[in-house]
Structure formats: structure tokens, C-alpha cells
């Protein structure tokens, strides 16, 4: 839920990074945190297990600057990707303004990507969203892996609403800010429609 505070002159939006286990959602957020100016980023919170698998969510507030006199702040969340954490994923989508789907380009993760997209659609619907209209972009991550599937093939299989698609190698930072910019643009432009 976009939250506009005229008293504080702030726009607050919530973006959720979604995708199968180990696709690089947390890496995206960590990279954004590492490469953002200290005065524009908040604390990065990771509710993770000892083996660094996300247990509930990662969270990071990011201030992007001023637009038409309003400070724009984005709250970035990731969901836990593992299948059995579905209850948590559902909760984190509450009040979401935009979704980034992070797909794993490795051929072995083909089914996991498809399952996760179906799961996203179900959970958006359960939260009262129209999955076809919520601001949405897709990131094809791990483009540098030896078994990475061709972009055209992944697009054909995973794209379902003509969404913007970004190629990425998250640990190296490739495509991470492009993806963020893609979703920020859709979320802010979507404000006009409501």
C-alpha cells in the first residue's frame, strides 16, 4: 500500500523480490545496500537461518531522492524462496506496491521458476490483488552460469504479461540497479492511476 504523508512530504512504497529458493533475491538486496549511499539507505535486516537461507524476509529501506517535492522511500523485501515457507510469502505480499520476480537462469531450475510464478499469482490473488495489473518486472539472474538457458527461451516460458525483463548477475551487480529502476518506474507511474 503506497503511503503518502503530506505532513512529512514522503511517498513510501513497498517492493517485494519474489522467486524460487537460491535464485538470488537476497543477493539483489545486499548489492543494493552495499552500493547505495549511506545517507540514503537504512539498516538491512535479514531474518535468516544459520545457513543464510531466508527464514521470513529481508528488509531494507532505500531513499531515492526527491520527486516533485516529496521524498521517495522504497521498502524492499524479499520472500523466503523455499517451497515450504508459503505461509510467510503470503504475509509479506500484504500491501505490496510492486513485485520483482527473480528467475534462476540455470536449466535445472526451470521447473522451480515456473512453480514460483504460479505461486506468486496465487498469493497475489489471495491478498486481493489482480496479478495482471500489479506493477511487475522480471529479472533473469545468474546469466554467467554454464547452464544458463537462452534469454529467448526463458522469456517464452516465464513471461506472462509482457513485463519488462532484465538480465542480471547479481553478485557482480550486473542488472541489479536496472531491475530496481524498472520496478520503481512502474510503481511511481502506477500512482497516477489510483
Amino acid at each position: 500500500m503506497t503511503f503518502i504523508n503530506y505532513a512529512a512530504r514522503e511517498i513510501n512504497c513497498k517492493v517485494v523480490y519474489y522467486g524460487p529458493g537460491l535464485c538470488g533475491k537476497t543477493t539483489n538486496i545486499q548489492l543494493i545496500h552495499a552500493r547505495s549511499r549511506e545517507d540514503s539507505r537504512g539498516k538491512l535486516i535479514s531474518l535468516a537461518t544459520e545457513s543464510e537461507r531466508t527464514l521470513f524476509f529481508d528488509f531494507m529501506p532505500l531513499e531515492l531522492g526527491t520527486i516533485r517535492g516529496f521524498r521517495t522511500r522504497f521498502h524492499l523485501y524479499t520472500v523466503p524462496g523455499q517451497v515450504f515457507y508459503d505461509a510467510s510469502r503470503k504475509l509479506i505480499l500484504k500491501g505490496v506496491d510492486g513485485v520483482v520476480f527473480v528467475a534462476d537462469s540455470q536449466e535445472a531450475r526451470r521447473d522451480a521458476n515456473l512453480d514460483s510464478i504460479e505461486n506468486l499469482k496465487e498469493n497475489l490473488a489471495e491478498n486481493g490483488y489482480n496479478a495482471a495489473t500489479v506493477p511487475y518486472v522480471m529479472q533473469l539472474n545468474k546469466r554467467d552460469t554454464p547452464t544458463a538457458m537462452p534469454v529467448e527461451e526463458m522469456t517464452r516460458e516465464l513471461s506472462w504479461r509482457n513485463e519488462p525483463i532484465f538480465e542480471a548477475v547479481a553478485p557482480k551487480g550486473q542488472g541489479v540497479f536496472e531491475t530496481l529502476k524498472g520496478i520503481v518506474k512502474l510503481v511511481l507511474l502506477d500512482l497516477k492511476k489510483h
Partner: protein
Amino acid sequence: MGSGMVIREEDHSRLTGLLERLVAESSAKFSFLIDRAGQRIASGGDLGEVDPTALASLVAGNVAATEGVAQLVGETSFASLFHEGQKESLHISSAGPSILLVVFDERSSLGLVRLRVQQLTAPISDAIQLIEDRGETVASSGVAGIGIAEITEADIDALFG
């Protein structure tokens, strides 16, 4: 869903006033009103060194998880949550669609906090309801000279330098 919430100056001062009163009357340290998506709507009292954004997000996550648990055991929700620490304690409850958090220490007590929360929940919920009933959205808010509705792609590009 996703329609958003528009807080005006008068909403902000009304809510802040109510939270300040809650803090004063319950001898608490500070109080937050948080939306279910984890954004802080208003606060009262002295936050000290606390990171308000992180706190709001985690409390909303905590409430969401607890509500999930409630539904699993056949309740719709739990009326309140209480976390007791060695020095600081938290009282979390619902105020209409929002979450009310009170942080207090040994200068207060759970009983007093709970009493004051009960007394002030109705006016806080009413204030939120007022905002919801107004049904104001970003596009419709039309406050002169604000121009959120005129955001352009160039504005957004400028954010990323």
C-alpha cells in the same frame, strides 16, 4: 488493494496528538501507529536511538506471523501481543486496520499500558477510519502545487542519476 493511504497535515497532527497522549498517560517511552504493510503512520514520545523504519517493518511482520498462527489454531487473530524484556517491553494491538505499538520500561507496567491502550484505541481507530472514509488517493488528492499525479519518466530517471 494497493490503493494507498494519503495522510494530510490534520490527520498527522490528530494521530500524533493521540499517540503523545497515550505515551504520557501510560508513562511509556514511545508509541507507533503502523500499517499492516510495515510503514509507520505516526508516532509519539521519545524514540531515542531506535531505527523507526526497521522497527515498524519488523513489528508488522511479527503481527502478520502471529495472525497466521492464530488462524492455524482456529482464531481469527489475537487481541494483543506482549513481549517482556529485561528493561524494555512491547505491547502490540490492533487499532482498526492499523497496528498500535507501545514501548515501555520499568517506569510503567503492563496493566497500565493495557488500560490506556484500551481507552485510546477507539479514538485512534476513528481517526484512521476518517482517513479511509475520505477514500482519497494519490491521483484524486489534488492538493494544489503537489503534482504527484504529474510524475514523469524523466523525474524517475533523475532519481537514479
